[in-house]
């Protein structure tokens, strides 16, 4: 029983949840506005990590600064992916008819490309760097400073997102598109521009999460996919297109992962993550609150 209330595990859950939330919000944005499942999302996390690593190891750039660089890079990649690839999906009617499955294949191709470009540039070996890894003592909690930093930045970013969606014009426009695509266009929202912004923002958030993650653990070109899977679980748990639900879902998944690994065994973690993923897809693909999309 003492395990559950251990501050150590609780802190782990908070850190993991905040990072997961960032990744999930980005994925949910793309899904919510365009109903596309971006399986390459985890690759952006990986890219963010490599930007921070390269900046630090090669140029001595602080990972904190790299968060901004990564966000800009992520936004650029996002805009590029949308304009060069995704937009074309909506051109041909044949492809459009099965746009959800076709987009998924396209994203799959994108993820393979990104993974291997990175592997080409950096080799497939794991990389890491030490940054602020002194251990802090808060009460009886022992935690690395970089994890506290990651939590702080991620949480701030999540709050910033929440404010953005609530008060900023672009944010509200995004929410409008998520709720009712066609109506949004009718009231004068330039849906194409919103799409670009959504991709840019979504990918930027993933890249940001990646830089924070790189502070706390090693990175490799193929680390992205588990994050994609986790993000999917979260957005399904929290409700597809429901952005605040992502935070709720992130907490749930982080708790399951951390406590599961602690109570059973760490190597079980992958089985747990994929098991939850499968269960969630089989039981409730449209989210806990939405209507079921499985056959009758």
């Amino acid at each position, binding site marked *: 029983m003492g395990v559950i209330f251990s501050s150590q595990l609780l802190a782990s859950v908070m850190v993991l949840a905040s990072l997961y939330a960032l990744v999930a919000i980005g994925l949910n944005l793309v899904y919510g506005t365009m109903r596309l499942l971006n399986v390459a999302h985890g690759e952006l996390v990986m890219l963010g990590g490599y930007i921070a690593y390269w900046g630090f190891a090669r140029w001595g750039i602080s990972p904190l600064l790299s968060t901004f660089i990564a966000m800009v890079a992520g936004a650029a990649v996002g805009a590029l992916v949308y304009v060069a690839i995704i937009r074309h*999906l909506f051109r041909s009617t044949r492809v459009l008819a099965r746009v959800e499955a*076709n987009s998924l*294949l396209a994203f799959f191709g994108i993820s393979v*490309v990104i*993974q291997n470009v990175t592997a*080409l540039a950096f080799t497939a070996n794991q990389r890491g760097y030490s940054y602020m890894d002194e251990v802090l003592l808060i009460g009886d909690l022992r935690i690395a400073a970089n994890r506290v930093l990651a939590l702080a930045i991620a949480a701030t970013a999540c709050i910033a997102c929440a404010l953005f969606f609530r008060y900023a014009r672009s944010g509200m426009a995004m929410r409008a598109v998520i709720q009712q695509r066609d109506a949004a266009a009718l009231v004068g929202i330039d849906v194409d521009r919103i799409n670009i912004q959504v991709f840019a923002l979504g990918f930027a958030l993933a890249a940001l999460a990646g830089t924070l993650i790189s502070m706390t653990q090693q990175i490799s070109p193929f680390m992205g996919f588990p994050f994609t899977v986790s993000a999917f679980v979260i957005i399904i748990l929290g409700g597809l297109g429901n952005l605040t639900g992502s935070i709720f879902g992130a907490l749930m998944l982080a708790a399951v992962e951390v406590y599961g690994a602690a109570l059973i065994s760490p190597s079980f973690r992958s*089985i747990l993550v*994929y098991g939850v993923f499968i269960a969630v*897809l089989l039981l409730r693909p449209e989210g806990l609150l939405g209507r079921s999309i*499985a056959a009758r």
Partner: protein
Amino acid sequence: MKRRRQAGLTLAAVVALCAALPLALGPYTLGVGLNLLMWIALAESWATFSGLSGYVSLGHAVFYGVGAYVTVLSWNVLPLWLGVSLGGLAAGLLALCLGWPCLRVRGPYFVILTLGISEFVKYVVISIEAALGRNGRLLIGTPSLTILFEAMLALAVLSMATLQIVRSSRLGAGLLAIREDEVAAEAVGINAAALKLFAFTLSAFIPGVVGGLMILRSTYFEPMQAFSPTTSFTIVTIAILGGSDKVAGPVLGAFFLVLLSELLWTRAPEIYMIILGALLIVFVLFVPEGLFGRAQRLLGWAAR
């Protein structure tokens, strides 16, 4: 009718020629040929379900891996060919069990579900192996390359025959209708759940046997490799490149892939993967009918 017989005879001649190849080719080239036949068998089997029904399976490696694992487990316990066949059966059984719940999930969710299942099974096998204290398994005394080649040739031919038979049968018509509009298909009397499950199970056997054969070839079983998502990715890319619902499509795609692989794999495997990924994107967007489908259109052949 005469055209049919001519085509049949040509096909038989080609197969006979291929069967005679081990006499003429050296071990390296024969190995390349084996790979080519492997990809053909895998992609044709994949197309039998995914190409016709439109339910894209991104996790077909799971059947390959299960076949490999069962073959390895039955090594020296059962006669070799029984073990390999058992691998195929195990894959089919897995498809039957998985298909029942999974095929109820539609569209892109099915696609990522298959990805998730493949990874899930992979990690389960890793755990089992770890629990058994095994760190990879080595097979000693496996059949010669020639035998494996002939067996793979048989599988490739069988997979092509299966696709052709299904395609032109009532089952195939039903699957194509499901691909177009599942609700409308149900409205004309198609039991979509039953058809999908049958085709899905059918598409798993040959990949299971292929997995068994390939593990005999490599003589080393390692779950990360056997269940590698790259296998699934390559199968899908071959089918998309070549064309995913006609028999000739995956053959074209496989030829192209093996050619590309021969040019690039040893020198720059990452570049090979990058090109593959880029091709997948381009073809999904601009040539969804694949090379064969595009060739058919350009040459004005009937689309059937």
